[in-house]
């Protein structure tokens, strides 16, 4: 896919994210905006999927372990045609399909329910093991947050992926440096990330998580790495694309009001209207 096309999709996804969170009156814009470009590449380019047949057995699987960034996933799934875009504006409303965190039982295209941090990589390992058992060539993609690396279960799972040589699994760390209570450095240091994974036996690649070319080529490198899993540590900006949210701790889990939403949409539209 060409760069302009990625950019167009990403812009639309970001607009959806701010609008749906504003409509819901709650949600997590910061981490949704930081991870958006990665999801756009996965769902519009890298993954073998069929929006018309979400349960396709040979599809690549995706696990959003940082489940609070669900708006980004929902926006991408809607753009990709898994469900009507009208659903986005019902996010977090009682009776709606789109839950506050991904729910695989309700939402077509969601491969794993998440929301309690630290649990997604283990589930992804199980999927990758299953593909290995079946000698199937589908792959598993996972996204964790950098703060999420503070959960002990992540490191249990990191050991398991390496132990079982899960080269059909690619993990993205959405490394925006911020979490609810402050920066990673203030709350609980997670650095150095890539080195930690390397000593656990992983292939580690560091990229700019907003550069489509870098995201694409890292995914290709991961596909060609044999015998061990790959982690792509993606440097990202929390709140990316909305000036007043970028790198602001306060925008982890706060909804935009009407005025803020309008301003955000203007910025994201970039005068194109």
């Amino acid at each position, binding site marked *: 896919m060409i760069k302009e096309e990625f950019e167009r999709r990403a812009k639309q996804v970001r607009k959806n994210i701010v609008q749906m969170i504003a409509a819901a009156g709650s949600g997590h814009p910061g981490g949704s905006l930081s991870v958006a470009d990665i999801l756009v590449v996965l769902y519009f380019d890298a993954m073998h999927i069929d929006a018309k047949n979400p349960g396709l057995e040979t599809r690549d699987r995706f696990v959003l372990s940082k489940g609070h960034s669900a708006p980004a996933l929902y926006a991408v799934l809607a753009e990709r045609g898994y469900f009507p875009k009208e659903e986005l504006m019902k996010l977090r409303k009682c009776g709606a399909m789109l839950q506050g965190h991904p*729910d695989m039982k309700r939402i077509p295209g969601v491969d794993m329910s998440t929301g309690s941090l630290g*649990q997604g990589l*283990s*589930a992804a*390992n199980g999927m990758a093991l*299953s593909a290995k058992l079946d000698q199937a060539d589908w792959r598993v993609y996972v996204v964790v947050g950098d703060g999420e690396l503070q959960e002990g279960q992540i490191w249990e*799972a990191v050991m*398991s992926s390496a132990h079982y040589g899960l080269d059909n699994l690619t993990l993205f760390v959405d490394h925006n440096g911020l979490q609810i209570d402050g920066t990673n450095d203030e709350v609980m240091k997670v650095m150095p990330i890539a080195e930690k994974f390397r000593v656990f036996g992983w292939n580690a690649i560091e990229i700019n998580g907003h550069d489509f070319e870098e995201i694409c080529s890292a995914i290709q490198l991961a596909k060609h790495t044999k015998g061990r899993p790959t982690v792509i540590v993606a440097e990202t900006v929390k709140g990316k694309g909305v000036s007043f949210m970028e790198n602001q701790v306060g925008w982890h889990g706060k909804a935009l009001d009407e005025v803020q939403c309008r301003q955000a949409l203007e910025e994201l539209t970039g005068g194109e209207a």
Partner: protein
Amino acid sequence: MGIATRAAYGKILETELYKNEKVVVLDADLGNATKSMSFKEAAPKRYFDMGISEQDMMGTAAGLAASGKVPIASTFAVFAAGRAFGQIRNSIAYPKLNVKIAATHAGLTVGEDGGSHQAVEDIALMRSLPNMTVINPADAKEAEEVLKAAVQYYGPVYIRLGRAAVEDLHDEHYQFNWGKGEILLEGKDVGIIATGIMVGKALAVAAELAKEGIEARVINMHTIKPIDRTLILETAELTGKIVTAEEHSVIGGLGSAVSEVLSQERPTKMAMVGIQDSFGESGSPKDLLEKYGLTEKDIMLAVKKIIKYA
């Protein structure tokens, strides 16, 4: 004396369940103790030792289930239900994934390892989870049948198994009825509803009571969730007095499940034999059962008391 229910688990894995290509078994470095290791002999590629990491094991089982496998995850009950509760809740029960949890070394009869290793609250924890089925087999044959049935059933199932040998109550013709309690003895004077290792004791007590002319109706309530409401109500109707017996805390276990049904639909005088809001301690299974009030004598006293005051 028969064999332990965990031994029955190992046996059925090795003789039967391995034939199902979808079945995969996971353990957390306790395969020799839980007896899951026997699956490794039969189907090595489908056996995953996850190391000492129960949370990761449950999550991995969830992913395997999400991809069409039928994972059985084993570890000690205290680690399964307790340590990995959050993983069982969010990664297995919430998405209703097809994971079977074979939790061994449950209750006081794990013995000498002491209170840290004695799961006396696991039924309460698992029973509180939507989508979860909770089964506590009474003997080896029943454990085998439960495992066979659990693999056929779609959805999360918690199977509680013991470390110590238990007497055989069922012969080779026994058929496990999913969700239906088993009437072992008919009687009209008192209903004894027991589960797990307490079922055999309840039967022995009923035999003693019969000598005194008291007829007890004895129920093996192997499935704690969903509980067999019909059988509980019918037993209350018939006897007017219910005694429950479990190797578990009286808070949140079988006694609670039975009383939840009765208190709402047919208030009935009850007595609960179980662990009275306490952790266990080190000791032989026999000594512990005596100290914590889980003997035939304790069931007998409960029956006598309830007959007197009802």
